[in-house]
Each structure stands twice: as C-alpha cells, then as structure tokens.
C-alpha cells in the first residue's frame, strides 16, 4: 500500500511538473469535438443526436493519445527498472501508474465532458449521465490502454501499433457509455448501461494490471 501511494505521488508530481502533456491532451479533446459541428453541420437536432457519441469517441481518442506517455519515459530513463527492483511488486506499480494517469488525464476529461455536451446541444438532463458514464468508463479505458502501452513500450514508432491493439478493446466501454446517454435522451433509464460500465471497470481493474505487469516484465528483460 505504501509502495502504491509512493508511486502514485511520484507520478502525479511528475505529471504536474511536466503539465503541458496533459493539457495538450485536453486541448485535443476539445478541438476534436469542436470539429464535429464543422463536419456534420451546426443543426441542433443533428448535433444533439450525435453529441453523446462524439464526446465519448473524442474522449476515447484523447486517452489513446496520452497512453504512450504511460510507461515510455520511465522505461527510457531506467526508472521503471529501478522501481521494479526496489519497490513493490510490478502489479502494484502498474496499478499506481494507471491510477495516476487516470487522475491526471481521465478525470479532467470527465470534468470537461459536460461542457462539450453543452456545446454540442446535448439536452441538459443528459449532462449528468454523460459525466457519470465518462466517470465509470474512463478507468476502463486507462486500464485496458495500459496493456497496450506496456506491450508496445520498447517499440520504436509504437504509437500507431498501440492504437491498433487498443481500439478494438475499447468497443464495449464505448457502446455502454453512449447507450447510457442515448437512453436518457430517449426517456429510458440509463441505469442498466451504467451498471454494465461499472461492472466492466471492475473487471478491468481485476484483470488488466496483471496483463500489463506481464507485458512490462518483458520490456524490462
């Protein structure tokens, strides 16, 4: 536990010190979402219809973009190896690093989501559900993405490969997340979708760090 907290604190500190990376990812999130009205037209009906999906997809891509920072820098300067040698088991390190990543990238995305929903004419009553669905979904995105980041950590130009590996696995959170928003818009309950999102986040929490640690062990050899 102390090891977990130590790594978490270290990563959060690093993220704050080199804050620009996280801010860039957030800027990407906003700009990408702002492109949609330009692409499909500003008609409010159309925008409201697609807003949930747009916010979700842009958030998903933003997480994807940020993933290569997750282990790469620590791997290059050798601190990952040192952590693995000196500190707690790799599984815990992974969990701490993903948690820090979620706090510095995922959580700001969640907080920005209602703002983007508003810009995209999403009905007001759907905004809380959009935020909640992002809150439940982004941990899955970070955890699953961590596997891809660990698998591609030693690879030159691994970014495109990373997205090829991770995007198919992002299908379920995307579907349930958008379905929750749409359920509210069409007057149905969002509860089942949100519960499924939460279940998925828990499953990812149980399984993904294990796979990520196994993949990182390869890179550390």
């Amino acid at each position, binding site marked *: 536990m102390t090891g977990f907290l130590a790594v978490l604190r270290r990563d959060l500190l690093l993220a704050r010190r080199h804050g620009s990376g996280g801010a860039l990812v957030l800027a990407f999130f906003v700009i990408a979402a702002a492109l949609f009205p330009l692409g499909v037209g500003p008609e409010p009906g159309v925008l409201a219809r697609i807003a949930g999906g747009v916010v979700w997809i842009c958030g998903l891509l933003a997480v994807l973009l940020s993933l290569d920072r997750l282990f790469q820098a620590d791997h290059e300067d050798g601190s990952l190896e040192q952590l693995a040698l000196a500190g707690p088991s790799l599984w815990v390190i992974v969990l701490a690093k993903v948690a820090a990543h979620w706090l510095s990238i995922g959580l700001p995305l969640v907080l920005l989501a209602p703002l983007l929903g508003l810009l995209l004419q999403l009905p007001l009553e759907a905004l809380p559900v959009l935020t909640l669905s992002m809150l439940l979904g982004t941990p899955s995105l970070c955890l699953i993405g961590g596997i891809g980041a660990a*698998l591609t950590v030693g690879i030159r130009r691994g970014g495109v490969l990373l997205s*090829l*590996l991770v*995007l*198919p696995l992002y*299908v379920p959170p995307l579907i*349930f997340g958008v379905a929750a928003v749409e359920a509210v818009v069409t007057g149905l309950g969002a509860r089942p979708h949100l519960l499924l999102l939460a279940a998925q986040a828990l499953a990812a929490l149980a399984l993904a760090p294990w*796979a990520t640690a*196994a*993949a990182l062990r390869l890179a550390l050899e």
Partner: protein
Amino acid sequence: MHRFANPARFARLSARALPWAWAVAGLALGSGLVGGLLLAPADYQQGDSVRIMFVHVPSAWMAMFVYAFMAAASAVGLIWRHALADIAAKAAAPLGAGFTFAALATGSLWGQPMWGTWWVWDARLTSVLVLFFLYLGYIALWQAIEDPGKAARAAAILALVGVVNLPIIKFSVDWWNTLHQPASVLRLAGPTIHSSMLWPLLLMAVGFKAYFVAVLLLRMHAELNWRRIRALRLTAGESTDSSHGFATLPAERASL
C-alpha cells in the same frame, strides 16, 4: 539444445500428417463444392444466392475457431514456455485473418441481394469486423518486435487479452444492436436447413479445417527454419564479431 529435440519430433509427425491433411482437404472441399454448387437445391426464398452459404459459413466458423486455437496455443506457450506452441500461434494468425476477411466479404456479397445493401451494422457482422481488427493487431505486434522469444510472449499476452475480451465485445455489440435495430434488414431464418444443404456444408467445414491443419503445419515448418537460420546467424555473428559477417545468399536475395 532440448528445444530443438521437440521440433525434430514435430517435423516427423507433421511429415506424416501432412499428406493426410491434404487428402482430406482436397476430397472434402471437392465434394463439398460439387454438392453445394450442383446437387444442393436452390432455396425457395433466396434462390441460388443461398449457395454463398457454403463458403461463408465455414469461413465464419474458422474465423472463430482459429482465434480460439491461437489463444490456446498462446496460453500453452506462455505458461510452459513451449516454443512450438508460440510458433503454432504465430502461424495460425494470418490464416485466421484470411478466414475472417473471407467471412466478411462473402457476407457482404450475400447481404447485397438479400438485404439490398452491401453492409449492415448487424451484431454479427460488427463483431466479426472487430475480430478482424484483433487479428491485425496480433500480427502487427509480432512484426514489430525483433526478438522472437519476446515477440511470442507479448503476442501471447495480447491473444489472451483478446480472448477474454471477445465475449464482452460480442455481448456489447449484441446489446448495441438491440438498441439500434436496423430498419430494413430482412432476418434470415437460419436453423431450418434441409439435409441436402447440410451435408455439403459439413463437407466444406471439414475441408476448411483440414486445409487449416495442412497450411498451419507448412507455416510452422517454415517458421522453424527461419529460427534455425537466425540461430546460425547469431553464432556466426559472435565469431566474426558482426551480425552481417557474410555475404547475402542467393535464396535470401530472392526473399528480399
């Protein structure tokens, strides 16, 4: 060198199994094609377009079977550090991707006359499309990592992550599809299949599977050769202090 003792036995076994696999594949595919194209009657609703089933359905079955095979081989390779299992998983991937693509393309060609559109975001089509992407990622990961041992383990982790996720993806796509039922889709009544159509279908399925076994063995053989070549090169590299210690060989030039 106990790792090479096993491949020797594999080579013997595969040499014995290959002719049988070829024979079964040839016979089953040949008779299945005759049965499917000539003997089976046209469907009273779908007409002769129903014959697409004889390549579409076996392809789709193989698409899923090969991924399961790959994941099982990956698990064996990861847990017992069995080099042959790694090689089997690697050799299976392009075949699985090929079957998956064939299933998608023939499904699209079947969909056009039946549904009036080339592509429907139907639950089954969509999850097979995602399966195709999973195959591509797996193959790309193998290609991206130079060291075969490391590549094998990374790819094995990915295959296992994929196989855990596949049911979730399937479930989520089904869920999504019930929310967005495509309006114009004519549902095909599946299960009532006449025996005159069933036996060519089963023959084709057997043929596809035997083909898979045969080509898999062939690919594993080739991969084992490449690994031996690599090992020879590495020892040569150590003695001449350079990994490019000798001239390109004619066969190698041909492969470049």
